[in-house]
């Protein structure tokens, strides 16, 4: 038997104080990886028994929910990285220049600032300066000096709209397609549809901002009415990457339990389980559970390995901004944390992780892109934190060839208003904040299967989408399309209905971004 490449036995021998020459259950060739492989092929105890157990559990994926599954049709994108700018970035200060807004700066206009609440407010021009870049001539403001060099990689959608003026429901909707709580996240849908290629890592990974999670917290990566196996797994970019990963940290807080010792524990466990199984032959759930311990063991190695950015070159690390200082603003954390997460995201998709979501902005208000209290101040916090890391992520994905099979999405839960939230005419513009705006906002995609350029327009003030308007469900349908999935076929039965990520209203794929 060939030892598994992912398990360096020699290292184990070194770190284990005890006798490491004994042959373990998992390593003696009768089970372990072999068991897993057989299971994945449905072969160990026969297809019939396996099907029976799965059917008994009510879902065909029940006994192996994360097994890789084919796309509905061939498509390039195998992975997705969603850079979630939580709080709602300001479109007219970043990608959607509005000369008329600047001209009318200080004048009043009637704007719907909350649902059905239209009232006159003071227009707030952008203080950013815009230029067109590259062959596509994509507009980008000076808030993103580094990202702007990559405009030819981006398909910018300027005409999105969503349903809610409030963060709570809007973030849920961006993540799950529904403004109501309780529905599976997009990452859950993708792992439900496609499984995960690398069983040693979770299929749907979430990294949040060190300043805090997004509002509503873990609900945003919940699998809703789907099994918990599809929910997002929080990954920390320093220390222990996954909860309960280390046997040592958890051993009653006393240390001393090495991985080798845990392996012995698992092997012994499964020897006893094998005795139990012998009297219950044919129960593939029991054997699947045995295999899950093997997976857990391997995860203990592969997860920290994925996080080990010391393996990257100095140049790469520098490129992601890991050595950049924090900004001067007290709420700023500098590009290093987000850069580290972007680099880890690249390493994760490289290792087959299906969906990685990174939040920039966590907590509230200026800790996020929620620029009520001053849009210039807000941009000064969050643009420098993300500009270099995102630019490098795109370059690095391109360098490694991963951009060919990875879809990158950038955006927040909504955009912002063209009017100043509290300023009155003539006041210092630096104090001008922008309120939420779900009626027109910008997101972009890059990577597998997209066509660089821009789609749609907002009105002359950037207030709402008017040309090629696309609801968020269209964005979701487009993501599914790019991932080789048909939104009509990707369903999950709940509450008497075949549920879809895009909901009951027929979505329209955003054709303009497809290559």
């Amino acid at each position: 038997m060939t030892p598994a490449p992912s398990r360096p036995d020699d290292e184990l021998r070194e770190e284990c104080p005890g006798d490491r020459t004994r042959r373990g259950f998992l390593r003696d060739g009768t089970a372990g990886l072999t068991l897993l492989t057989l299971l994945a092929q449905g072969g160990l105890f026969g297809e019939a028994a396996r099907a029976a157990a799965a059917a008994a559990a009510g879902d065909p994926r029940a006994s192996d929910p994360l097994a890789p599954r084919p796309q509905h049709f061939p498509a390039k994108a195998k992975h997705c990285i969603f850079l979630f700018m939580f709080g709602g970035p300001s479109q007219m200060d970043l990608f959607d220049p509005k000369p008329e807004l600047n001209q009318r700066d200080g004048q009043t206009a009637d704007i719907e600032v909350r649902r059905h609440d239209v009232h006159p407010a003071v227009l707030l021009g952008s203080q950013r300066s815009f230029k067109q870049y590259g062959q596509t001539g994509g507009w980008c403001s000076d808030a993103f000096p580094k990202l702007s060099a990559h405009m030819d990689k981006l398909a910018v959608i300027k005409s999105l709209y969503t349903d809610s003026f409030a963060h709570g429901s809007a973030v849920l909707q961006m993540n799950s397609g529904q403004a109501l709580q309780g529905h599976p996240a997009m990452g859950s849908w993708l792992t439900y549809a496609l499984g995960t290629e690398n069983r040693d890592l979770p299929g749907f990974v979430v990294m949040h901002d060190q300043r805090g999670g997004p509002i509503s917290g873990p609900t945003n990566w919940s699998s809703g009415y789907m099994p918990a196996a599809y929910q997002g797994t929080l990954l920390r970019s320093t220390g222990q990457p996954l909860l309960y990963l280390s046997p040592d940290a958890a051993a009653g807080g006393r240390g001393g339990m090495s991985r080798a010792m845990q392996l012995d524990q698992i092997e012994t466990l499964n020897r006893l389980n094998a005795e139990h199984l012998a009297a219950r032959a044919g129960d593939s759930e029991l054997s699947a559970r045995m295999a899950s311990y093997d997976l857990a063991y391997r995860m203990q190695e592969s997860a920290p390995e994925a996080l080990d950015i010391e393996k990257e070159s100095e140049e790469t690390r520098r490129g992601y901004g890991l050595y950049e200082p924090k900004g001067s603003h007290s709420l700023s954390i500098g590009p290093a944390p987000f850069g580290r997460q972007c680099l880890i995201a690249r390493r994760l998709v490289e290792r087959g992780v299906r969906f990685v979501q990174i939040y920039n902005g966590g907590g509230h208000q200026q800790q996020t892109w929620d620029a009520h209290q001053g849009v210039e101040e807000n941009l000064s916090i969050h643009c420098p934190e993300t500009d270099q890391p995102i630019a490098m992520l795109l370059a690095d994905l391109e360098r490694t060839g991963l951009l060919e099979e990875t879809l990158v999405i950038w955006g927040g839960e909504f955009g912002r208003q063209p009017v100043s939230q509290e300023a009155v005419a003539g006041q210092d513009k630096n104090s001008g904040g922008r309120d939420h705006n779900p009626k027109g906002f910008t997101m972009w995609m890059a990577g597998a299967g997209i066509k660089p350029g821009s789609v749609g327009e907002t009105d002359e003030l950037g207030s709402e989408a008017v040309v090629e308007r696309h609801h968020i469900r269209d964005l979701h349908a487009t993501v599914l399309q790019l991932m080789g999935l048909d939104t009509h076929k990707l369903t999950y039965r709940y509450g008497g209905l075949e549920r879809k990520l895009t909901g009951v209203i027929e979505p329209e794929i955003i054709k303009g971004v497809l290559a």
Partner: protein
Amino acid sequence: MNTRVIAVLGLALGACVWIAAPMACGPAADSPAAEAPAPDSQATQTPGDAPQASGDAFFAERVLPILSQRCFKCHGPAAAKVKGGLRMSGRQALLAGGDSGPAIVPGDADASLLIRAVRYTDEELQMPPKEQRLPAAEVGVLERWVTVGAPWPATAPAGAAKPAAPVAGTVAAAVPTADAAGAPGGLGTAAATPVADEPGGAAVPPADGDLGTHPTHDDLQFFEQEVRPILADNCFECHGPTLAKVKGGLRMTGRAAFLQGGDGGPALVPGSLKSSRMLRAVRYSDAELRMPPKHRLTEAQVKSLERWVAIGAPWPDEAGAPGAPAAPTGADSGVRRDIDLDAGRTWWSFQPVVRPTPPAVAGAATPIDAFILARLQGEGLQAAPLADRRTLARRAYFDLLGLPPTLEELQAFEHDEQPDAWERLVDGLLARPEYGERWGRHWLDLVRYAQTSGYERDEEKPLAWRYRDWVIDAFNADMPYDRFILEQLAGDELPDASPGSAIATGFYRLGVWDSEPDDDALADYDELDDTLRTISEGFMGLTVGCCRCHDHKFDPLPQEDYYSLLAFLRNVQPYSPPKYALDSPTLTPLDLDWRKATAWERGRRDSIAALGREESRLRELGRQRALQKELANRPQLAAAQALPPEQRTPDQQRSLASLLEHKWTEGEIVGALEIEDARRLGKVMLDQEVVADSYPGDLDWALTVRELGGGPLPTRLLVRGKPSTPAQEVPLRFPRVLFPSDEAALVTDVTRPPGASSSGRRLALARWIASPSHPLTARVLVNRVWQHHFGRGLVATPNDFGHNGEAPSDPQLLDWLADEFVQDGWSIKRLQKLVMMSDAYRRSSVAGDEAAVAKDPANALLWRQNRRRLEAEPLRDSVLAVAGRLDPTRGGPSFYPDLEREVLAGLSRPGEGWGPAHADQEDRRSIYAYVKRNLTDPLAEAFDRPNPSLPIAVRPVTTVPSQALVLLNSGFMARGARSFAARVAAEAGDDPTARVRRAFALALDRSPTADEERIALDYLQRATADFAPVAPVLTFEARLPERADLYYLAKLAGEDVLAGPREGWLYLKGRWGDQYNNTLAPDPLEGPAALWTQAVFQDGELTARLRLRGGSHFGSVLLRAQPQKEALTGLEVRLDADPPRLRLVEHDGQSAKVVAEAEAAVGDGAWHELTITARGPAVSVTLDGGGAPVLVAPQAAVTQAGRIGLATWGEGLELARLVVRSGADETVLEAPAQRPQDRALEALALLVLNLNEFVYVD
């Protein structure tokens, strides 16, 4: 981030301070404020705005009916003569008021005469007069209306042609148009309204009289030149007057057609720029209503249409003549007309239950077996043998109690030779209190039980746990299921209502609730929808929710039937933030008598008053200090003040007088106070607001349903489910397909329960659902019981008995059980006993029969029992039971499971809404754990406990590696394994064989086989060898994320912040600051610390062997330390990870400063030896025994004796050994040694708790 307005206003006062002095809101331990939703400063930035808390629907459906029924008789807009000079023709009229002044002050209910009048608190002013006092709920509606700014839309959504409420015809007809059109001969103020309702709109004065119906020549010319071309070019393609079929039911034939409108209601309201649907559509301001759909009109075109509406929408020729032809409504409304109800009535689950006769089968032990064996024989299958007694007992214990039998219990059963041993076992288990805790949990899944609201703020729903206890008690008392339904749906309306049945109506309050909905009217319907789905799926297995927007796609349920069913719930008050008040929509005092209520009210006022006095005192203090400060800055003035008054010059007198009269601003007052006092001021201000809503007093409150009072609101079909597009009113009617005819489904005899403020409709609904003749109720319930005894229901989709659900695997058996259940008085316990007495239940789960496996691999015919994995709760509870630490305390408020900081960190305010884990609560059964929607226990989540946002009938069973990790490496399991091992050691002694046998006996109720024993013994031996060289270490690690919610933090003790050994250690929380948005971060230099209480140290030498874990920020040794509140005085030698260095920090109790530092490679996760020499002020530190000191501080400030301690933040610090030499004394601190065989036993104990046999029930 605005919050629902009610909450904002409630906290506005406190929130002002928030802005004035960000530091003025300190932790509020043990006070109601600690539970209060945090004021969001966003919400306060525009305090003067009239908030849009409620849409037009609120006014039309709740407020207007009250006004029209109660007030219009004397103050009606159309009354010939009004009393007191007040004509209620609109908002302006109320603002202008009558003889006594303005009737309302928008936003301030207390200051509004109208509210004071209806409250009947003022003897001089009581309306309606002559004791026709409004019910409290109606007063509440008016208060809410005024509080949100008293919006008075120009028309109710149903439109002029369809009065919103069934009020007297003359009045109703006059009202909707009164404000818009200017009441005929009405008030000047009202006449200004039409254009005033939307600033920035076309400033065109309204025409006189009946707006628009007598257009002038100019008006008509305007129409022909500007408006008609726009309509023709842009609208007639779909809404043309001559089309055969128009879209949305709107045919633009003339003014009347616009007034009547289409499916969405009236297309325009003459004069109202705000309420005219057409204008909303062309403005493109509403994402769901945009016309023309493919292009947008120019701004000029929109302005023309606005002007046209503003002048009354004149249209030549027919000029709005009544009776003008209009398109039929509903023609295109999306209601499918092809549902054949008669055909639908033939569906199996809609047929009455007819008791089948069990087939005659030889060897059938019970009627259940007769049905099953008959089918097995028909298929030529052999049933599996009965399981052995051990298997049976474990199955029964887990099924009924969710706990394993103790070895003694098991043995008693195994040795019970009586023929009725099994029956007595089942009876005994059904009678145990743990039974309700097990079966109550199944019910809680169905009603999506949780204790918070979800969404952004995830506020607590106080007292939700009482509902949980009611469910447990109901199961334990074997409350008949029909009664169980009645109490939950209408416990307040029952003739024999009781405190218990009131608690049961907490059912209505369990769902998610968005405190900041995008659209209030939609949110109210979402809430009703959520409740209706839960009722229809939970009690009836009917997916009625599918026809909220359109006819059901699979079942014979027209959309109208959805709204007819909704009409039974229509009067339920929407959930609102909890408020302890006698008229609260959500909380009710259970034991109310008026004496108590009066005392309660007094207590509440006293509490507020006491806080008010404290506020005054602090303000006065602030003023005095501000004055002193000012004097200190102006010495001449201070000198003048020191003089006797008569010696002051006039200038001095003037200056002093002006200073004394100075109105200090909020900022000056707060700024002058000491920080603690400033915090306290913020808190008492906030608390006054909070106490007003959250003073429970000694009344016994419960979370309950409340109705709006008044006549039941009309219920309309909403086109595409949108409140903005109401269509025809629907009758009060049950789903027609469940009745022989449409007429039979009508409900006409609903009566208001005597003395109740509710409509009686919910009781009518409940009685129908709970009636023996209901075709679904009993079938659905017996299926659920079957599901939990066999792992799968006879109908595999327990919440869907419709066309899209699974067909019953044995319809005869299902019906027999349903009939038996009803005949036997709806007793769930007797039903369960019936099931458990069958052979079918008692069969082995081993799939040993190859022929059967081949023919029926999924065991659909039940030739064997199903093996089932334990759900999250019984799994956790079993670990506690086997470990010997299960705490049987039942009921009451929930406990908070101990969550890792990684889990807390997922929240935007980590820890918000969570409480500290108390060691004496942690071992209670899982059903008593707090259920927070946005934060779940990883163990429960990993083992498929459903997300509590939606009803879940079948929990998925998944197998993923995260389950293995949680069962191997979580703190909960480490504790469990440790206790389990200790128990084994105590009972079995030192002999490894005895230990293995005991561990198996306790966890699995059996002895190990010879093979198992050998495997386990070998393991113990290896593990003992592995642990032998492991030196014990003390570990310390942070338990909180980088930031934490300040209220959460206020509830924690030092050991909740830093984890480490408990005995002999004192923990300090450290200082927390850097407040942003209700979160705090630990001060990087004065974070939490642990002090060893066993030694005092002044001068001498300390040697510590320690290491920083990867991801740790720092680790420190403290000396000469003494606690100062949460911080300390003393010296700290700190190992920093990034950048790696060694630092000496001095603490003086207020602050800390670095006095020496040096680069040193200490952040590498390796072990280091630190030697600290301290003699008086001279301190030096050497690292890893190497020569010269790395740090030298000749002048340390702290020289007196104190404790030795440790500090760390992040992933943590491990300490192997600490030696203290002081003169000739040597004290050693090290982790208590543990014998390697005992640690090996712990590892084995953990392993046993991970066995498939432990996790699965045969």
